């Protein structure tokens, strides 16, 4: 029925590995490996192994966050090696077994991770053909590989696994190793069904939240009553009546309970009598945007600067300006973060759904004053995280508690922990200015972004902060200045990011960080200018773009949505339907997307209904079309939720959006129809699909509402100005 089951049967039959080293997939979950497997980025052995049964194990530093890349990466390797898809197993994100291919973020799993795997497979393929040629005493060029078997003239056949004997390839990845011609692809480009879905719909799949080890206890952490509150005292007798309590663990302001059962740990967490100091250091929420404006600027990052925007603006015939703000968001994983930590002497193994186990290893080692080599982090699939949520923080909690009790500890955060303490998408403010010259051209474009300093680095671990320990954390909002520069050719442009010294809540990246906020401002402001000029938004964009792929993606979304024949909004009706367009060439260097949103606005109540989204999408070579569609749909629906429903609420002490009632998200009846046109370019490099569409959703909604009402939406959620 499923590839998963076939694989399980195959795995059972597999013997020792022969191409490379004595490791098999079963090492993926073991507490400690018996020998050292290569994990360097340059070695083929780091990425691939073929065993005596012909089974291929892929070692991927990029992990499947619920996006389907386990399947897509397996397709890439099976294709390039010409082995049966069912013979490929993928091990992901294990610091002892997989190469550090970078954190799984930024829509880069296929674009970077997949391309690295493809090159390793191409190198292995060439080496295997050379070995076969020597064995068969023919020229390598006369040989091909078909379903894991080398085939020569006269139908001479040799199974891959019979080739190598008990030796390692020990070769370096060669960037010049020839890749297969995409015209001959059998797997890449096909909507292969996802490997994980049968297990996920039958309860057989092991999520991080399901993972257990023998002798494991359950931990919960009691968080401070205010973000910066100090622990004054606690009374252990208050939980004396709960059976199965193992220990109450305190380290400065870190306070946890460990129990033999999960329910006992939860009850103890709820019942423990604790006194915290008063703390009210957050800005008043109604003054958030003044607070952002008044925060100290550490430096300015100029992300583009052509011509002389100041002079052009001053001499322009018309000047336009607008301000856009974007609310604080939480990741909102449906499954709260979870981890299991186990010490073996002075070695720690931590199982986590972290999107960056290699970085987590460094952070845990720093927190515990261990060497990196003493910590092993192993990825286990969790609930979708959409960025750096709290998986890493749960890992820190589990490690601190496991060390304190000398036994393995599992920590799963409660709902209020996840909403209250995961790092947040920071509040983002943009000031925009444009000048129109006497010929009607946009002669000047300026933007100022107010955003915390930092990049996608280490986000401090909550437990470490509370315990007074260093976890290498620093301000890390993500790559938030991307897409502040614009894709349009305008003579005088200056885009500046004012990097702020602080932000009310510890920041981290949430899907399309910065790019979404910057695209919201850019694409909305572009429509304001077009409206001022009386020019159609599509025609206006085409006028300032010269790139053929940009034009194609816009033309295709226009056709898909019947843009040019769309009905004109009835500005006198009680409900008015508007249409909004938005475009990106993501980060100015990759995936092209054009979207059109159809939204209905109730002129009396102000209620906005997002009805339909049309998406034309060009991410170059498509590995798995249905996987890309699934991602695009998720991009649209999740971001409609963020724009229409979400805004973190807080008091001056703490987050008050602590559950789904106080932080509502989109529900089924409000989900729009999504219509997609995928542009496949098999001979181009593959780019990401996990983020680019999301970046456009806020502006497309804003532009549709503007079109419906002839006014602009310049805040999120739906603040009409």
């Amino acid at each position, binding site marked *: 029925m499923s590839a998963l089951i076939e694989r399980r049967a195959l795995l059972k039959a597999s013997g020792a590995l022969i191409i490379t080293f004595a490791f098999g997939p079963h090492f993926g979950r073991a507490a400690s490996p018996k020998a050292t497997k290569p994990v360097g980025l340059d070695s083929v052995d780091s990425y691939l192994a073929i065993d005596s049964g012909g089974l291929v194990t892929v070692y991927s530093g990029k992990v499947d966050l619920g996006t389907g890349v386990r399947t897509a990466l397996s397709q890439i390797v099976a294709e390039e090696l010409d082995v049966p898809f069912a013979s490929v197993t993928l091990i992901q994100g294990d610091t002892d077994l997989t190469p550090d291919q970078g954190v799984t973020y930024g829509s880069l799993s296929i674009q970077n991770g997949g391309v690295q795997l493809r090159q390793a497979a191409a190198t292995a393929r060439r080496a295997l053909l050379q070995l076969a040629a020597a064995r068969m005493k023919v020229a390598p060029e006369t040989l091909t590989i078909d379903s894991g078997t080398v085939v020569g003239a006269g139908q001479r056949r040799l199974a891959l696994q019979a080739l190598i004997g008990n030796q390692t390839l020990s070769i370096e990845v060669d960037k010049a190793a020839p890749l297969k011609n995409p015209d001959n692809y059998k797997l890449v480009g096909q909507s292969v069904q996802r490997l994980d*879905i049968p297990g996920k719909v039958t309860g057989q799949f092991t999520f991080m939240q399901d993972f257990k080890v023998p002798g494991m206890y359950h931990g919960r952490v009691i968080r401070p009553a205010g973000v910066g509150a100090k622990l004054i005292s606690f009374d252990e007798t208050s939980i004396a009546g709960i059976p199965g309590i193992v220990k109450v663990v305190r380290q400065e302001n870190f306070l946890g309970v460990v129990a033999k059962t999960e*329910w006992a740990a939860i009850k103890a967490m709820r019942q423990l009598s604790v006194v915290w100091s008063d703390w009210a250091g957050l800005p008043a929420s109604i003054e958030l945007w003044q607070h952002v404006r008044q925060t100290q600027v550490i430096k300015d990052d100029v992300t583009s600067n052509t011509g002389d925007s100041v002079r052009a603006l001053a001499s322009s015939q018309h000047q336009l300006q607008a301000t856009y703000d974007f609310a604080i968001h939480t990741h909102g994983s449906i499954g*709260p973060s979870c981890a299991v930590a186990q010490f073996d002497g002075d070695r720690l193994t931590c199982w986590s759904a972290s999107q960056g186990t290699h970085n987590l290893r460094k952070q845990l080692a720093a927190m515990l004053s261990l060497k990196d080599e003493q910590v092993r982090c192993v990825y286990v699939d969790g609930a*979708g995280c959409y960025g750096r949520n709290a998986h890493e923080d749960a890992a820190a909690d589990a490690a601190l508690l496991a060390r304190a009790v000398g036994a393995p500890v599992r920590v799963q955060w409660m709902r209020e922990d996840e909403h209250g303490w995961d790092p947040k998408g920071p509040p983002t403010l943009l000031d925009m200015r444009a000048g129109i010259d006497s010929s009607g051209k946009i002669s000047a474009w300026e933007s100022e972004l107010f955003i915390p300093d930092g990049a996608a680095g280490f986000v401090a671990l909550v437990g470490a902060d509370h315990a007074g320990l260093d976890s290498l954390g620093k301000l890390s909002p993500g790559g938030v200045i991307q897409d502040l520069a614009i894709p349009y050719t305008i003579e005088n442009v200056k885009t500046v990011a004012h990097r702020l010294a602080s932000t009310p809540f510890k920041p981290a990246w949430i899907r399309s960080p910065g790019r979404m906020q910057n695209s919201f401002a850019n694409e909305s402001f572009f429509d304001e200018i077009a409206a001022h000029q009386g020019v159609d938004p599509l025609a206006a964009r085409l006028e300032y773009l010269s790139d053929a792929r940009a034009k194609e993606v816009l033309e295709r979304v226009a056709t898909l949505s019947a843009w040019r024949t769309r009905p004109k909004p009835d500005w006198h009706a009680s409900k008015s339907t508007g249409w909004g367009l938005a475009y990106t060439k993501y980060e100015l260097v990759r995936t092209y997307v054009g979207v059109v949103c159809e939204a209905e606005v109730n002129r009396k109540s102000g209620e906005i209904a997002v009805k339909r989204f049309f998406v034309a999408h060009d991410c170059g070579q498509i590995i798995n079309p249905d996987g890309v569609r699934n991602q695009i*749909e998720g991009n649209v*629906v999740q971001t409609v939720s963020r724009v229409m429903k979400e805004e973190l609420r807080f008091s001056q002490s703490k987050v008050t959006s602590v559950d789904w009632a106080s932080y509502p998200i989109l529900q089924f009846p409000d989900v729009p129809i999504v219509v997609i046109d995928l542009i496949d370019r098999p001979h181009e490099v593959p780019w990401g699909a996990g983020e680019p569409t999301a970046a456009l959703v806020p502006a497309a909604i804003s532009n549709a509402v503007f079109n419906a009402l002839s006014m602009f939406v310049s805040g999120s959620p739906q603040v009409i100005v």
Partner: protein
Amino acid sequence: MPAYQLNVNGKDVIADVDDPVMPLLYFLRNEMGLHGPRFGCGLGQCGACTVHLNGAAIRSCVYPIGNVQGKVVTLEGLGTPENLHPLQHAFIDEQAVQCGYCINGMIMQAAAFLKRIPKPTEDQVREELRPNLCRCGTHIRIVRAVMRAAQAESRA
């Protein structure tokens, strides 16, 4: 320690628990190793923990084990990889999963619903699933999968 007689997925089991208020979810997951039902909120707000009690979809994260009387069915009891329930089949056919953490709730809610309303409209399905939250944005496929299962059932 109080013992409760339960029937889970067709098997009689005795639950020895020290607290009758403990939600059913913890017994199913930690004592029986049934990982279909999942902890999402502990508040009955998201649906990830949904199981059937006497055929009705309930939130096992807030349902005290001491109050459980009758037959409990989890995702594992609905169907197996070798013998899929039509909804499980439809979710695979439609590839109606992203991370999959919410999917237990979607399938269990829909299964109880289709017993009551075998031929729903799409709007009825959306309304029925309103309390079930999905963060990945898989809603469109989930509705399609439920409609597909309903059609498959009505043909059978």
